[in-house]
C-alpha cells in the first residue's frame, strides 16, 4: 500500500459568481501518472494553480508530500515543477538562458541536474542560442518541460501540455512522460484530448468544476454499464437521427466515420430490422469496447438528468 503523495479534501473555488471548483476530493499516490481529462472551463487550471500554491482556495485543504499548499507554500515550491498552459518562458531570452534562469531561481545548476533533462533537452540543444519565442510549438514544449525539471522536483504539474499540438508531437510528449514516471516522479497532467486518457495510470474526468469519475482507464471502460454499438449504413446523413429515434437508444452521436449508440439492451438483430424499415441499406453494426470519450459523453448525459 503506497501512501498518498497528494491529498485534496473538499476543495472549493469561485470567481465572483462562477464556480470553478465544486467540492473536489482526491488522493494521488507517489509515482502515479495521473490525468485530469476535461474541456476548457472544467476547472483544471484552477486546480493546478491551487496545488502549485499560486492561488488560495475558498474552502477545503490540499497537501502535497505532507505539506499544506497554503501554509507551507515556500517548501512546496522547491519540490514541484509546474508547466502552465500558456507558454510562459521568456521569449526574448535564448533557449539556454531560459534554462539557466530557471535553474538559478531554484539555486540549482544545469551541470548537476543535466542527466534529468538530457533525453528531452538534447533534442533542442542544437538551437540553444535561439530566442525561445522563435521556436516551433513542439520545441517550446520541450524547453518548458526542461525548465520545469531542472531543479529536480518530486512532483510535476503539467497544465495542458499538448493542447494545440499535432498528433505526432503529442505521441512523442507522452513517451517522454512515461520515462519520467519510470524515474519515480509523480506526474499530474491535464488534457482536453480524451484519447490521451489511456496513457495515464489513473484519470479523473472533470466537467464544470466537478469530478465525474476517478479510476484507471481500464476499469472506467469496464464499468461503462451499457452495450455500445458502432453503426454505418448507406445513408450516413440520416443514420444519427434515425438511431436516436429508437426507443432502445439511450444516447447516439457521431464518432469518426461511424455513429455510436449507447443502447438499453444488446439486440443487434432488432436494431438492424428497425433501420432497414427506415430505408437504410448496407447496415454494418457491431458491439464495441467504449473509449474514454464514450464514457465522458455518457457521464455528461447522466449528470444532466
Amino acid at each position, binding site marked *: 500500500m503506497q501512501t498518498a503523495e497528494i491529498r485534496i479534501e473538499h476543495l472549493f473555488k469561485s470567481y465572483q459568481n462562477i464556480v470553478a471548483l465544486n467540492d473536489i476530493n482526491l488522493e494521488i499516490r507517489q509515482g502515479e501518472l495521473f490525468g485530469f481529462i476535461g*474541456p476548457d472551463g472544467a476547472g483544471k487550471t484552477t486546480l493546478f494553480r491551487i496545488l502549485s500554491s499560486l492561488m488560495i482556495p475558498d474552502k477545503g485543504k490540499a497537501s502535497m508530500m505532507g505539506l499544506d499548499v497554503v501554509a507551507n507554500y515556500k517548501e512546496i515550491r522547491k519540490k514541484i515543477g509546474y508547466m502552465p498552459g500558456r507558454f510562459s518562458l521568456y521569449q526574448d531570452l535564448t533557449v539556454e538562458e531560459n534554462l539557466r534562469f530557471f535553474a538559478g531561481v531554484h539555486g540549482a545548476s544545469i551541470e548537476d541536474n543535466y542527466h534529468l533533462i538530457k533525453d528531452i533537452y538534447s533534442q533542442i540543444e542544437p538551437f540553444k542560442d535561439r530566442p525561445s519565442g522563435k521556436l516551433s510549438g*513542439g520545441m517550446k514544449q520541450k524547453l518548458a518541460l526542461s525548465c520545469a525539471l531542472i531543479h529536480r522536483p518530486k512532483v510535476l504539474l503539467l497544465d495542458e501540455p499538448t493542447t494545440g499540438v499535432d*498528433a505526432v508531437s503529442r*505521441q512523442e510528449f507522452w513517451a517522454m512522460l512515461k520515462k519520467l514516471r519510470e524515474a519515480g516522479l509523480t506526474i499530474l497532467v491535464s488534457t482536453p*484530448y480524451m484519447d490521451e486518457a489511456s496513457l495515464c495510470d489513473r484519470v479523473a474526468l472533470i466537467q464544470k468544476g466537478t469530478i465525474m469519475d476517478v479510476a484507471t482507464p481500464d476499469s472506467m471502460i469496464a464499468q461503462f454499464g451499457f452495450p455500445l454499438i458502432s453503426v454505418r449504413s448507406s445513408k450516413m446523413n440520416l443514420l444519427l437521427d434515425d438511431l436516436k429515434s429508437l426507443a432502445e437508444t439511450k444516447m447516439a452521436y457521431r464518432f*469518426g466515420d461511424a455513429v455510436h449508440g449507447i443502447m438499453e439492451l444488446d439486440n443487434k438483430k432488432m436494431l438492424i430490422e428497425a433501420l432497414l424499415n427506415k430505408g437504410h441499406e448496407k447496415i454494418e453494426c457491431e458491439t464495441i469496447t467504449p473509449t474514454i470519450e464514450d464514457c465522458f459523453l455518457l457521464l455528461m448525459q447522466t449528470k444532466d438528468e
Partner: protein
Amino acid sequence: MEAADSKTVIRVRNLVKKFGSFVANDNLNFDVEKGEIFGFLGANGAGKTTAIKILCGLQKPTSGEIRVAGYDIYDQADQVKKNIGYMSQRFSLYEDLTVGENFQFYGGIYGLKAPVIRQRTTQLLDELGLTHIKNKILKEIPLGWKQKLAFSVALIHNPRIVFLDEPTGGVDPLTRRQFWEMIYSAAQKGITVFVTTHYMDEAEYCSRVSIMVDGRIEALDSPSGLKKHYRAESMNEVFVKLARSGKNSR
C-alpha cells in the same frame, strides 16, 4: 468576375511561398468545390497557417495562381475578403460586448446595412436557439456557446466560403459534435467549409482531407480513400504515418 467553372470555389495552382531561404509552401495544387467540407491537416510548422493567410488574401504568395470565390488573390484581395468568413479558436468575439453588439460590429465591418444586420442576427440566433442571450455580455456565457456564436458571426455576410482554424480546440465532446452539426448544415446550404483540426476523429467528418508535410501536400483524398491507400484503420494512423516523415515540422 466569376471563375469559368463556378463549382470550383478555391483554385490553387503552383502556390509557392518563401521566407528568405525557407520554403513554407512548396508548390501546392488543389481545388475545393462548392459545399465541400475540406479538412486541411498537417503537423505544427508544416505550412498550414501560411497557406490559409494567402487564401484569405492576408498575405501574397511568392508565386502561383490562386482564385478564391472566383476572385484573384493578387488583384482582388478585397473582393476575396468580402466573400469569405473566418473563425479561429484564438481570435473570435469581443468579450466585453454583448452577443448582439458582436453581430452588429462584424456586420458593420462587412458594410451591411442596419436592417440587414438586424434580420441576420435574429435569423442566426434563432437557428442556434440562443435568442434569449442576445443582450448578455459575452464573457458571461459558456465557452461552448461562444464557439457556436463565433461560427454564426463568421456567416453574417453570407460568405461563399468559411475558414475555420481549429474551431473546436478545448471544447467538450458533446459541444464538439454539436459544432460539427452546424458545419454540416452550413455545407448543405452550399457554403464551402475549409477547416483545420488536431482532432483526428474530426478528419473523418470531412468530405476530403489534405495532409501537409514540410510545406507540400503529401496526400489529398476522401477519408475512406486515404485509409484504403495507406492501409490504415483510422485517420489518426494515416496522419501519423505521413507526418512522421516530416523534417521541418514540430
